[in-house]
């Protein structure tokens, strides 16, 4: 059942189009993430939903009822929306104790008997694990604890939706990981829609049923995390979520089994595609580093490319290999070690099912532009790790 709908939302700041007509919907118990690089309009979208910004276009509906509609000029102020919001800065009031902070929404809304108020505050503090901290002031709490106070405060009013703006970004890695799971668990118990803004792709994938990848105020792609990861539609998404090798080529024709043959500098590769491809058109292939197998002996089967090993870095669970097929650099991640010294020759086998033609990158101009960028990116890919791991 759909609960929160954002319909062609637009928000402008002067000449900056911060949000450019985006639409999505969140179901009752769904946890959805807005993901994207800095400045892509995530916070602005969230603030429009919360009511801190008036949309310039589009509408926002909760349970079928508009809370903001640019067409009619209808706008419900944030204090009438009952959306629980957790801010990046926590925004826990330093002049109130933990208990006062959490009780505040009930107090200002009035009509809650004292005993019930106490009970509800105690209940939420128990949920976030802050029993025993009631009388402390926020300055006497750690960052993670303040974060929980902010969460309890958002929960206590029994919100109709939960909104998070990078709430975990100030926490250390371990705590962040724990809080992720706690947040999902709490949300799933409440059965209300949750919108979570982050620029951390791992966080978005772990937590959400749906991720929405944004770029420059628009939605690039949305879907289940597995789907967005496995079938990115554009170079931007493939690059932003996880890592990818990009290879340009021209479609040669069908290759049977619903696959396609693409002529590339690596040779003719068998690829898969979401849509039929006309022979002769330009195509960009995205190949995840973990979808390439390196072997010393030439394996049988399609998509085998001889490569030279340039560098190898051991990262614990897996190793990172930088190889080159002629002039084309490739990045490979594999957990089984391949014992070859740099400069040695290897064979790279690319799984046809995971060698994808990007649907959004078909036009020849785009391919042209991309080719330039790709070499550039690959150059960088060769250099950066050696800096990072030195």
């Amino acid at each position: 059942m759909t609960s929160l709908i954002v319909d062609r939302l637009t928000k402008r700041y002067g000449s900056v189009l911060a949000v450019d007509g985006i639409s999505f919907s969140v179901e009752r118990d769904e946890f959805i993430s807005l993901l994207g690089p800095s400045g892509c309009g995530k916070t602005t979208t969230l603030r429009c939903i919360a009511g801190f910004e008036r949309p310039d276009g589009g509408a926002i509906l909760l349970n079928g009822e508009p809370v903001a509609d640019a067409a009619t000029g209808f706008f419900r102020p944030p204090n009438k929306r009952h959306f629980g919001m957790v801010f990046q800065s926590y925004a826990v009031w330093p002049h109130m104790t933990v208990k006062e902070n959490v009780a505040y929404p009930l107090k200002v809304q009035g009509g809650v008997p004292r005993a019930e108020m106490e009970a509800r505050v105690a209940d939420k503090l128990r949920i976030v694990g802050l029993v025993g901290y009631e009388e402390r002031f926020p300055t006497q709490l750690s960052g993670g604890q303040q974060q929980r106070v902010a969460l309890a405060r958002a929960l206590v009013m029994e919100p109709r939706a939960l909104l998070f703006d990078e709430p975990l970004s100030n926490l250390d890695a371990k705590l962040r990981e724990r809080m992720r799971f706690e947040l999902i668990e709490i949300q799933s118990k409440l059965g209300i829609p949750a919108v979570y803004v982050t620029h951390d792709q791992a966080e978005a994938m772990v937590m959400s049923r749906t991720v929405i990848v944004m770029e420059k105020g628009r939605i690039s792609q949305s879907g289940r995390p597995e789907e967005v990861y496995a079938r990115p539609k554009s170079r931007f998404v493939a690059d932003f979520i996880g890592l990818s090798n990009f290879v340009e080529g021209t479609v040669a024709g069908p290759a049977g089994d619903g696959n396609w043959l693409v002529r590339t500098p690596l040779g003719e590769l068998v690829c898969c595609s979401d849509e039929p491809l006309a022979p002769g058109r330009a195509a960009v292939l995205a190949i995840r580093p973990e979808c390439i197998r390196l072997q010393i002996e030439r394996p049988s089967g399609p998509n085998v490319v001889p490569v030279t090993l340039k560098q190898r870095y051991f990262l614990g669970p897996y190793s990172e290999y930088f190889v080159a097929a002629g002039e084309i650099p490739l990045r490979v991640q594999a957990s089984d070690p391949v014992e070859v010294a740099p400069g040695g020759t290897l064979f790279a086998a690319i799984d046809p099912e995971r060698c994808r033609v990007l649907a959004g990158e078909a036009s020849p101009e785009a391919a042209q532009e991309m080719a330039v960028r790709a070499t550039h990116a690959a150059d960088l890919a060769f250099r950066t790790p050696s800096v990072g791991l030195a």
Partner: protein
Amino acid sequence: MAVSEAAGQYGIVMRRVRAASLLDPLFYVQVVVILFLCALIVYPAAILLGMSLRDEAGGLTLKWFAEAYGNARNLGAILNTLVIASGTAVAATIAGTFLAWAVVRTDMPGRRLVEMASVVPFISTPFIGALAWVLLASPGAGLLNQLWSYLGGPGVLLDIYSLGGMIFVESLYEMPFVFLMVAGALRSMDPTLEEASLSAGAGLWRTTTRVTLPLVLPAILGGALLVFVLAAEQFGVPAVLGTPARIRVLTTSIVESQASYPIRLGLGAALSVTLLAIALVGLWLQRRMLGRRSYTTIGGKGAQPRRFRLGRLRWAIFAACLAYLMLAVALPYAAIFLSSIRTIWTADFRWDQWTLENYRWVFFDYPITQRALVNSLFLAVVGASVTMLLCAVISFLSLRTRLPGRRALDYLSMVPMGFPGVVLAFGLLHAWIHPPVVLYGTIWILFAAYMTRYIPIGVRATSATLVQIHPELEESSLSSGANWFQTFKNVTLPLLKPGMLAGWILLFIAFSRELSASILLYSPRLEVLSVAIYDLLLGGEFRALSALAFLQIGMALAMLALAKWVSGLDRTPGERTGGRTP
């Protein structure tokens, strides 16, 4: 580091802009506040202008201006005002720059003691300073002159009742403003600029005159202009020191125009407009000067400026700085204290002259004192509180909303800086003396005048604190379901408390001793402390007056101690700004 800091600040600015535009009921609050400020500032100014351009029958005329600039008496007052203001600006600037340099850039001993110069304006007003200097240097009874004769000196050593005397006293009490501005500029100056000159082969002296001084010149000129304006607006000093010598200035002439017969209000208004113009031009120039200052403050990260090694000169320079503190603080306050506990004012101290009779008389027999104390305390406590609350609302509206008109509000709240107290009082008096709203003759006219005069100081205190409070603290209150009023009351105000308290103390001190607006606005039974002192001055009651002046100084010192104690209290980390900057 610097980049990310700047980015962070930019982020906060953007947030602030975005925040709370939704608070529509606030628009009406803002309209009310703007109308209120217009009633206190714009309307009186318009009345003033109107009066200066109308004759008795109500027709348009320039005769009042003709009289103001054509008549020798009035022209003399204008010229005297300019002479005193310029003289004070020059003297205060030279002394203030010297002191600032000595404190910031030399290894002079006792630098912390000399820094105390910056509190001098808080301890007392130039008015009290002038009274004290009468005790010290009036031609007849001045203590220094008596000592001079006693030592066999010929004639009179010092005559404080003179243009020079006024310039001297005003410089003493207005110099700290120059000191503060120049010391600030020197402290924030990038030391590598000087080091570059040194390594280019210029000596310390040449570096100071060719590099350092030119770089802080905007601050010096800004300070000079500020002092010029303050001296032109000064009423207390010329009233005490000029009147006996028949030296008239604009402020005293304006006050006189209200009291003389036949009453010629148009002339007073024309003189007021003239003074207002002088002040506004001065402040406008000052703004422009300080606007150019930025290039000197290329924040060297905590880099210590190079200090001159003064060698043996250090004690001589320290002595010069100490002389300032003697002349501005030690001598005058000692004179006031002595005068308040003696039966007679002579240099010939004898045991049977000590008494508390002055205090008894002034508190119990002199009818005005008790009323004046009650009125002044009422104005200081209630007035400062209401003003700070208004200032908090103004800061909130102009910093935390995007309402149309908030710029006008911001601007209006700074305008009173350009209003001399006497001129403001003149305008308010004639704006609010006619039915249906008659404020004159009630304490509210004083209330309104004090409030208006000090709104800029209050707003600066609250705004400085508000920009340090993360807007998400308020937004989270809104999303908790609180309306704007609950948010302001429960979140904004408590977080503003430290800044408001500091501002409140400043206003309390200012309100408890205001003179130049009060002198036109008080009415019988509605005297205030400074008016009581002024009244005693007119009666020549110097010993009683000293008792009251001493009380006023004591009150200010107590408040300063309170301020220090309070600022020590709120230094608990994190309490002030709350939240975390992302």
